[in-house]
Structure formats: structure tokens, C-alpha cells
């Protein structure tokens, strides 16, 4: 009996190995794509393989920092990655990204001009924007008093009235960004005392915070577990679909304007194929699919015009310029500030 179990397992093993081998075999290029978790529409990768014959190893990460540490350790190699703005400028500074050949990316023409050549890649040599958006403050309109949101201020996150019902970013860059803006400083300040003041703000906020979370924000907001949370504007519709009481505003002190853009690593051995992939992702039908799946604003103008107008007219997701006067894009911080941020954040969390 046991022998049978064992031989059955052996058969399974042989089958699996054969399957794995056949998957890896052949001379066609294999592209390693590293993207945020659930940041692509289902079926897109399959379609790319079907149309080009290029196989994609698609893996996912949970934060810019995790992405950076995997790549900077030098142990894992990827072709296409999708970092956010400040991480792109850091990678450019550290000479990790390859200059793109835009002749291979004709669909770049569909990208809106206002999303090209932004601060993080000022000559637009290294990146093709994939999504963009801004941080907003979500709240439950039935439970948060109108007077408290009238100000449209970051202060709502520090309002003692809602102690225990406030969620906060579990990532230092976004959390400090809010605290710095609350104090009227720049999110990209290099003044150490401003960082320390922001840390004091965050420490003061900790007793009011229900939890430091990222993806759990959806569930906690939808179920009414929490009433107030900062997050990315593109998530509004996902939340409203399950809880129509959720609204959001762009804080008047200034939001973080972010972009996630596709880049090719210098170490990539399949640069042409990587550019093919990027071009494919910018194709209108694919961009529409992805935008519908992800919900974040797309910089692909033709795709944007094909989207449901109720989405593209949403002032939080596709805000007009006047709403973004105080908004800032994260740029890469100098190493000593990054270290300071890291130790301040650890301090806040561990006490």
C-alpha cells in the first residue's frame, strides 16, 4: 500500500518535472517581469505570449523597497520592473536602469504629455508611465461629521474624536509625507529637524491609530471597521462598489502625486523583448483592460477616452490641475535622510 503511494508520488514528480522542463525549453526569450501584486488584468500576459511567442516569468512584490532590495542585492535579475517615481530616480542615480529605445515603443505616443519628463526622469529616457494618481483621505460620510471634513485637511487623521477608527499607511515614505505636509513642510525636505518634527507628529498620532496597514485598508473601510484612512485615489471605486458611503478628498495641504512607470534594468539581456512588452502594455486595448482592472488613472490618453466617463470625470481619480497646486511628487532622498527616516520609523513602531 505504502509502496503504491510512493510510486504514485514518483509518477507525479516525473510528470511535473517534464512539464517544468518543457516550459523552460526552447530558444525563445524568457522575459522576467516584476510588478506590484495584482497590478495587471488577467489574461494580458497570456495574450502577450500568444502574439509574440515570448514567455513571461511574472513575479510580484509588495513595496518599492522590497523591489529595490531584491535588485540591489544583485542576486535576482529582472527585465521589466514597475517602480514608483522616487524609486525610479534612485535607480537612475545608481545607474541601474537602461536607456530605452523609444523607436521600439511606438505606443509611447499615446502617453499624455503631462505625464512625460516628470521630475523623477526629467528627460524621459528611462521610463514609460503605467499608472498615476494621488493620495487622498477616505472617510465614511455617514459616520464622520461634515464639519470635520469641511476643512479638507490632513488634520482629520489626527482628530481625537475618531480615536481608534483611523488607519495609517504602513510604509514610512507615505506616512512621513502626510506628517510633513501637515506641518507645512515639503515631502522631500532634507532638513533633519523637519523630519524629527514629523516623527513627533506620527508618535502623537499612534494612540489614535487603529492599525498601520496597506492592502487591508479596503476591507477595514468597506466593512466599517475603520472610518478614516489615507490611500490612493484609484481605489475609490473599488471601495464604493462595496460601500457607497465612502468618499474621499484631496487634502488642501497638498497630496502626494505618484506615478508607477515601466523601466528596463541595465542587467537585462533581453532589452528588445522588454521594450516589446512595454509597447504592448501601452497598446490601447491592453491599456483599457489594465485601467479597468486596476482602477488607477491611466496616462494612456486614447485608452482614457475609451473608459467609462463616470470614471474619467471623477475629480479624485482624474483631478483637474487646480486641485493639485500643493501636490508634490516624491523624489529620491539623499542616503542620510533615508537612513534617518528608517530609524525614526522604527522608533515610532517599536515603542
Amino acid at each position: 500500500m505504502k509502496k503504491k503511494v510512493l510510486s504514485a508520488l514518483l509518477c507525479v514528480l516525473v510528470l511535473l518535472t517534464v512539464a517544468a522542463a518543457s516550459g523552460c525549453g526552447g530558444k525563445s526569450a524568457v522575459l522576467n517581469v516584476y510588478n506590484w501584486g495584482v497590478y495587471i488584468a488577467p489574461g494580458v500576459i497570456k495574450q502577450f505570449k500568444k502574439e509574440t511567442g515570448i514567455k513571461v516569468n511574472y513575479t510580484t512584490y509588495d513595496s518599492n523597497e522590497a523591489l529595490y532590495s531584491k535588485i540591489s542585492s544583485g542576486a535576482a535579475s529582472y527585465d521589466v520592473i514597475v517602480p514608483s517615481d522616487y524609486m525610479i530616480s534612485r535607480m537612475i542615480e545608481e545607474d541601474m536602469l537602461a536607456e530605452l529605445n523609444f523607436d521600439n515603443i511606438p505606443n509611447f505616443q499615446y502617453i499624455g504629455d503631462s505625464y512625460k519628463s516628470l521630475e523623477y526622469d526629467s528627460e524621459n529616457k528611462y521610463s514609460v508611465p503605467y499608472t498615476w494618481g494621488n493620495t487622498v483621505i477616505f472617510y465614511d460620510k455617514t459616520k464622520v461629521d461634515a464639519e470635520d471634513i469641511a476643512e479638507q485637511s490632513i488634520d482629520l487623521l489626527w482628530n481625537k474624536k475618531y480615536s481608534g477608527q483611523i488607519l495609517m499607511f504602513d510604509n514610512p515614505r507615505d506616512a512621513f509625507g502626510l506628517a510633513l505636509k501637515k506641518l507645512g513642510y515639503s515631502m522631500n525636505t532634507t532638513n533633519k529637524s523637519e523630519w524629527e518634527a514629523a516623527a513627533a507628529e506620527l508618535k502623537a498620532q499612534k494612540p489614535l491609530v487603529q492599525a498601520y496597514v496597506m492592502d487591508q485598508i479596503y476591507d477595514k473601510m468597506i466593512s466599517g471597521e475603520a472610518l478614516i484612512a489615507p490611500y490612493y485615489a484609484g481605489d475609490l471605486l473599488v471601495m464604493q462598489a462595496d460601500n457607497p458611503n465612502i468618499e474621499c478628498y484631496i487634502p488642501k495641504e497638498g497630496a502626494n502625486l505618484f506615478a508607477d512607470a515601466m523601466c528596463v534594468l541595465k542587467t537585462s539581456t533581453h532589452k528588445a523583448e522588454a521594450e516589446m512588452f512595454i509597447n504592448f502594455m501601452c497598446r490601447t486595448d491592453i491599456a483599457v483592460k489594465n485601467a479597468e482592472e486596476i482602477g488607477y488613472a491611466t496616462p494612456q490618453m486614447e485608452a482614457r477616452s475609451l473608459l467609462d466617463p463616470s470614471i474619467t470625470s471623477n475629480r479624485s481619480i482624474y483631478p483637474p490641475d487646480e486641485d493639485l497646486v500643493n501636490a508634490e511628487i516624491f523624489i529620491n532622498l539623499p542616503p542620510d535622510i533615508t537612513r534617518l527616516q528608517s530609524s525614526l520609523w522604527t522608533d515610532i513602531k517599536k515603542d
Partner: protein
Amino acid sequence: MKFLSRLYTFLVFGFLYAPIAVMVVYSFNSEKSRTNFGTFSLRWYIELFSDSVILKSLYISLVVAVLSALIATVIGTFAAVGIDGMKGAMKKAYLTVNNIPVVNPDIVTAISMMVLFVFFITRINGLNMGFGTLLIAHITFNIPYVILSVLPKLRGMDSNIYHAALDLGCPPTKSFIKVVIPEILPGIITGFIMAFTLSLDDFVISYFNSGSTAQTLPVTIYSMTKRPYSPKINALSTLLFISVMLLLVVVNARQSAGEKRGSDKRKGVR
């Protein structure tokens, strides 16, 4: 008294299975929420099968679990035979090293291997974190458990049987396969199942040691920070759970049938 103890055991099992029950129920939720239940629907099962990223990482999880358990069982069984034949300080040294991955916290094992891979891969061209490093890491933490389950069986075995086989003219390799292996088979199978289980349950080791070519299911789930927790995962877990249950029922039924025929002298797998 007996009733109380039954009730207590029942409660503990309730505790162990409560989250699984929740998962199964919510996999049929028509809504996306993890807390609100809409109506019964198969929506997430349908969406699951069109999600190639999740399916691929499930496949990697299973391949890594099967391969690492098998390789660890082979290496571990042979090693156990060798360790069993040792004496004194040598044996002690082997057992100590063997215990390191067992006693060390997952995270320490994980980072120490990651440091090793980073250290060497960045110095040798053409190597990469990926399926290979994932598999190596899993094999490494699996081997000690195989040894720990095979060793007691060897200790309890009468070495005269093996010598008798040799005396009767059976060549060493053949007598090993024909005599020793069957004697310690329950230990080997326990070791294999143990290794397979640990590999499937692991998140920490894979989180630190996967790379560009492969990642396991839990790593994929953990990376879903930009999206809400998808009920597709519940659907997938439910399917996995049901298949494991079915497998166990089949194995159990066959075992009891075998026992009725009185063909199985051994106490069976533990």
C-alpha cells in the same frame, strides 16, 4: 469525565478548523468583502481559473513541495543510515548541525540562506535567484526532519537481519534495498509527509529566497498590497482543502481495507 474530555478535544478542533470553515464559506460570497456576506455565488471560482499569476504560483508551490520533499527524503535517508553507524563525537557533531535548521527560527534560516545566495551569486556570473534558490532553501530545511524521523526506526531495527542477508550471500546494496529499506519505510514516509507539509506551509523561507523566475503562492498573496485581499484565494484554498481531504479519505479507506485482510503488520504512518 470522559464526556468532558471529548468535549474539550472537540472544542480544540473547532478552534483549529474555524478559519478554514470561514475561508470555505466566504469563497462562495458574491461580494468582494472579507466580512460582509452577499449571496451564494461561484464568481470567485470562475475568476480564479482565469488568473494565470495565481495559478502559476500555486503550481510552483506544489512543484517545490514535491521536489524538495523527495530530494530531502533521498538525501536524508542515506544520511540517517550513515549517522546511525557513527559513534561518539562524530555522531554528536552531525546531530548538532542537523538540528540547526530545526531549532533556528525560520527567519534566521531564511536570511542566512539569502545572505549566502547574495554573497555568491553576485560574485559568479550567470547565476540568479529564482526557482533554484527556492528549491535549495526548501530542501535544506526539510532534510533534518527526514533524518529525525528515520533515525529512530534505524535505532529500533535489528541489525542481525541485515547481516543475515549478507551471510546468505546477498550483495550489500541488494540487502540494503531488500532488507533495510522495508524495515525503516514507515520512518521514510513520515519524513516525506513531514517535509511536504512544512514546505507547503512555509512562507518566510520562500519570501526571502525566491527570485525572478518563480515565487510560491503565499509570496504572491503577500504582495497584493495594491489590491484588496481577493476571495479568489479563498476559492483556491477551498479547492486545495477538498483535494487533501479526498486524498486522506482514499488513503484511509484503502488502509483499513488492507488491515482487514490482515496484511499490514505495521502500525502505519504517524
